[in-house]
């Protein structure tokens, strides 16, 4: 029997290469585990029926000496990333039966590296939410306590990795949607520099914010997947080739102290964060208090700009070109009924808010002002990174909350993104790594620490993350 709990991509790839493990056995072990666990967790929307065939093909490649970095490694994919010939529903009724007509560039790269695509994971509808409760197909539960949410919007991706139902998963992060669920589920989540990974084939939510990122068990695995998926792509004009910044052996780590004094941050989360900083100091790094005075306004900026982009991006779902259709008396009514019944509540709320923010007369008061404050936030980061090599905060202000706890109050739900949102607004990269646990009602719940680097500073995140988790090369 394979011990999935201690397995990483690095370890599995080594075992596959030296012949002590086959991809068929590995994939079968995950399929078994899914059968045992996913009835309760509900992290998968679909487990691909041909996963074992993919594994068989991978084994043949390895045997022929033609294996790549991921050959035979089972990876799960968030349901808003296109895989040719498979359903991509974004956990929405409006795309329930939509079959992707092409591969996302990130998927194409994973395939070229040999990955076995094992299934598509649950999420908040169109990536809008922080708990995976906004899925049209029912919520995902946190594997550490199934009365609690796994975070979101990539909650399914984080849960499958945490519950050993895949070796790694791919998610998308618009305001924290990879990092916050990684923190709630006790795994590693990366949001790369804006433009680092092509978004061709990722369903657009907030185009000035979205990035694809990996969810993994180790930082080394995160690095492996990032390096495979990164790079300029002619199909995404916002993608760029990054020249990575140098990585200092001993880093100056900035901590935005004012930001940590905000209301709503759990005292145990803060205590865990302070303990993590002490460990970093013991490793020889220096902790430096820094000031980023505009950061507390990030959520207000985000909840103006993101819905504005959502309302534009989701205009394409009209019940005519693809997806769900409801018949009305004329074309206009077809549109209104298809969209009204095809989209869920949170999506409808954001479309209305975005339409308001962009309407003549309010555009200047909200959209433009938000853009100005966004540039102040970016300047804060520029100033801070002139003094320090990386920044650090907790990833989320609380551990995983209970299902239903925040669904009736959108503002309260949005506050879960307080530490992750400013990163997307500025386009800098950040990683969440497990930092400790708290006990709630007899269950141990994971917490995460977030490291933020300057643009093109992913290598710094991998270095500090590996040191923090005491990871050694496999």
């Amino acid at each position, binding site marked *: 029997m394979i011990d999935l709990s201690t397995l990483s991509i690095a370890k599995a790839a080594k075992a596959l290469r030296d012949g002590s493990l086959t991809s068929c056995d590995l994939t079968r072990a995950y399929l078994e585990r899914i059968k045992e666990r996913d009835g309760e967790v509900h992290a998968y929307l679909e487990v691909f029926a041909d996963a074992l065939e993919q594994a068989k093909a991978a084994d043949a490649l390895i045997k022929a000496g033609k294996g790549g970095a991921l050959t035979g490694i089972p990876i799960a994919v968030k349901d808003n990333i296109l895989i040719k010939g498979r359903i991509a529903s974004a956990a929405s009724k409006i795309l329930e039966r939509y079959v992707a007509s092409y591969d996302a560039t990130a998927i194409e790269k994973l395939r070229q590296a040999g990955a076995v695509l094992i299934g598509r994971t649950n999420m908040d509808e169109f990536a809008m939410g922080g708990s995976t409760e906004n899925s049209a197909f029912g919520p995902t539960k946190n594997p550490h306590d199934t009365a609690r949410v796994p975070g979101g919007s990539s909650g399914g991706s984080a849960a499958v990795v945490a519950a050993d139902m895949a070796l790694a998963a791919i998610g998308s992060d618009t305001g924290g949607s990879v990092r916050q669920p990684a923190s709630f589920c006790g795994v590693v989540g990366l949001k790369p520099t804006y433009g680092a990974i092509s978004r061709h084939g990722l369903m657009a939510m907030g185009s000035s914010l979205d990035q694809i990122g990996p969810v993994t068990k180790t930082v080394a695995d995160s690095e492996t997947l990032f390096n495979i998926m990164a790079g300029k792509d002619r199909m995404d004009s916002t993608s760029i080739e990054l020249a990575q910044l140098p990585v200092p052996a001993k880093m100056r780590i900035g901590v935005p102290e004012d930001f940590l004094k905000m209301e709503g941050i759990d005292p145990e989360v803060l205590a865990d964060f302070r303990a993590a900083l002490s460990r970093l100091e013991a490793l020889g790094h220096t902790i430096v208090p820094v000031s980023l005075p505009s950061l507390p306004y990030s959520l207000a900026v985000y909840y103006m700009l993101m819905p504005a982009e959502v309302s534009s991006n989701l205009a394409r779902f009209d019940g005519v070109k693809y997806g769900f259709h409801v018949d009305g008396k004329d074309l206009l009514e077809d549109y209104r009924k298809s969209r009204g019944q095809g989209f869920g509540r949170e999506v409808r709320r954001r479309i209305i808010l975005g*339409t308001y923010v962009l309407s003549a007369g309010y555009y200047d008061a909200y959209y433009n002002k938000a853009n100005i404050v966004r540039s102040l936030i970016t300047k804060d980061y520029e100033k801070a990174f002139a003094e320090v090599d990386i920044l650090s905060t907790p990833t989320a202000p609380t551990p995983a909350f209970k299902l239903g706890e925040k669904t009736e109050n959108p*503002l309260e739900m949005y506050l879960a993104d307080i530490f992750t949102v400013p990163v997307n607004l500025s386009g800098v990269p950040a990683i969440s790594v497990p930092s400790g646990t708290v006990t709630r009602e007899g269950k141990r719940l994971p917490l995460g620490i977030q490291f933020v680097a300057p643009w093109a500073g992913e290598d710094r995140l991998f270095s500090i993350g590996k040191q923090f988790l005491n990871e050694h090369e496999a």
Partner: protein
Amino acid sequence: MISQEQVEKLAALARLELESAESAKLAGEIDSILAYAGELSRVAGEIDRTKEVPAHRNIMRADGEPHQPGIHTGVLLDAAPAREGKYFKVKKILS
């Protein structure tokens, strides 16, 4: 304050059909989100962003290398709820 009528107007603009209970609820929710965002106006102050050069610019590519006409038509139309030959089928917009 944003009224229920305003929400219904926005819904019409956004081509969304809403139940009236939902538009009433949305008016309250959007109000509280806008109140929360109200501080932005104070923080932004009188900064004139039009004089700044944005850090991000679109990377354009030259037109050219068009694909063969029609090679993607079939697969794209297969996703449509209704089609007629090579076209999407929609209702008449002029009566």
